């Protein structure tokens, strides 16, 4: 908790590096469920154009953290900022309206609806003119065209027919549709909650390639995953969640997978709060190697 207060000062003290202002930031998030502590003062920073991996053991508070960030859970305490403005989400819809899109592991698409309908589900476009305003008629052709463009832009060019029912697609392709939807509407942040958990190796490859595409487009991504190789493959920085708080933030360059697992499981007592400051260095820069911890 004290270290949480510490980090409050961080962004403002770095006024000389405006490019590194976090897109999204959480400070001291606390959430308890009865006597169970889900989040115990979590800090998180997401910088522009980066892929932030979040890993942690079961019960470390990964899902609660992500639910808090996307409005599915309301934290008891703590603050959240989006582009420097304080935000508080009461419902997932609030987060979505603020520009945060979430992709869930459950392949959350409507199987019998076609690709275009799924991409625009809940945000359908109406026709221009009286057909749209009076009869509330959908712009089906326009949505198909835009869906095709969106899929092509993400390199999913093999799915040509936007009228294809999603259930005729493979698991990876379905998830690709969900990612494309998030990319189309997530103007600020895309959150991917275990997007590869239900997929095979090949299928996961499709989704990982998509994540890289999102990054190339400059869209910051939060990736929650159990799968170390996947996280190390695409993440710029990795937030390790342990016992309801952020144990440390590492990068794929600074730590190996086994070191990350060791921190995650508590085998290595690297959960000194000083490590969190690695995040300050921003994407791409090497993290502090193990053994370098300390309050500074």
């Amino acid at each position: 908790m004290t270290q949480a207060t510490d980090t409050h000062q961080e962004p403002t003290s770095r006024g000389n590096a405006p490019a590194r202002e976090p897109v999204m930031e959480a400070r001291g998030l606390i959430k308890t469920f009865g006597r169970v502590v889900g989040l115990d003062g979590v800090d998180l920073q997401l910088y522009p154009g980066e892929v932030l991996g979040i890993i942690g053991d079961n019960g470390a508070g990964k899902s609660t953290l992500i639910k808090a960030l996307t409005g599915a859970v309301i934290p008891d305490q703590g603050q959240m900022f989006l582009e420097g403005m304080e935000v508080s989400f009461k419902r997932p819809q609030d987060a979505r309206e603020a520009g945060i899109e979430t992709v869930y592991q459950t392949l959350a698409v409507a199987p019998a609806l076609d690709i275009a309908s799924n991409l625009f589900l809940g945000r359908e476009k109406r026709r221009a003119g009286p057909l749209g305003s009076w009869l509330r008629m959908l712009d089906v052709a326009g949505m198909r065209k835009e869906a095709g463009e969106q899929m092509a832009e993400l390199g999913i060019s093999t799915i040509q027919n936007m009228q294809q029912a999603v259930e005729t697609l493979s698991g990876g392709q379905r998830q690709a549709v969900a990612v494309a939807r998030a990319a189309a509407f997530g103007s600020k942040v895309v959150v991917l909650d275990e997007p590869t958990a239900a997929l095979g190796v090949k299928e996961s490859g499709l989704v990982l390639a998509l994540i890289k595409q999102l990054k190339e487009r400059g869209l910051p991504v939060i990736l929650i995953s159990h799968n170390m190789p996947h996280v190390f493959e695409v993440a710029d920085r990795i937030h390790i969640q342990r016992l309801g708080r952020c144990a440390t933030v590492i990068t794929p360059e600074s730590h190996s997978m086994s070191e990350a697992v060791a921190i995650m499981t508590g085998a290595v007592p690297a959960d000194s709060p000083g490590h969190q400051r690695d995040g300050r260095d921003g994407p791409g820069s090497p993290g502090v190697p193990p053994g370098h911890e300390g309050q500074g």
Partner: protein
Amino acid sequence: MSTTIQAPATAAEEFEKRRHSPAERVHHILHSHPSISPALVLLAAAIVFTIVNDRFIRPSNLSLIMQQVAVVGTLAIGQTLIILTAGIDLSVGAVMVLCSLVIAKSAAERGVPAPLALILGLVVGILAGLLNGLLVTRVKLPPFIVTLGTLNVFLALGLLYSNGNSVQGSEMPGLLTWTGKTIKLGSFQITTGVILVLLIAAVVAFALGQTSWGRHVYAVGDDSEAARLAGISVQRVLLSVYVVAGLIFAITAWIQIGRAFSATPNAGADANLDSITAVVIGGTSLFGGRGTIVGTLLGALTVGVFRNGLALAGVDVLYQTLVVGILVIAAVSLDQWIRKVRS
């Protein structure tokens, strides 16, 4: 512990290759056009019945079939909306009967002006739908149980309101029996009720196919969790479906008064199962999320054509019922097969 990224194309390409066996093709066509199978069944039946007895194809007979299926067809349109959301409505006939008694009694015996009596009937239908919808969405009871309960409630209310008596068409103002009026179209004799059915079908088909609301109805029935995660208010969509269905059942009451030239408390005894039969034969999935209004109309016509055609062929009434039963099972089996390829 090492993974290499596959080219994003791989899975998709494999999928493209996979789809080409003949059975898969048939499956794909049926899958993307759910009203094809009922259309084929209807066409085949019409051809066979014409060969057996050429009276079948005469305009007078075809007109009769259309008039016969008008009531069940309209109920089936409302039923389709509910089944699309993976629900079921057993109270359709009871709602219709209650509405028809309210309309007929209030106009014939309580001196309510005919247009007002009709509006009163529509309000009762909407309220009945609202009650079903609230019990499903707020109390979270399964639609089967809710409508099994309200089926009896509405039937009892109808009997209480009418003291168990019917109202004859001759006692009613002309507007109420207007739906039974015949219009000559060449050698066809269509009732205004039949035209009303087609009108309702067109409006509902438009709403389902061309508006956001329609997409949301399909999405909620298909996978309500996915719909919720996409930001759709599932409860609101469900409630709207039950209310719209209630309104459709109330309009059916008007069509029923015209067709039977009376309002009777026991007119809709089998209407719930008949409407479900039409919906299912029309290719709508009982599991929700798949089906069309065109299919439902075809399904209602198919039932009418089989009953009529078998009667013309001199087959016993019991065999008609038997055939309809077999049709239902065949339709649901086909739906199972169509849905199977979900990986």
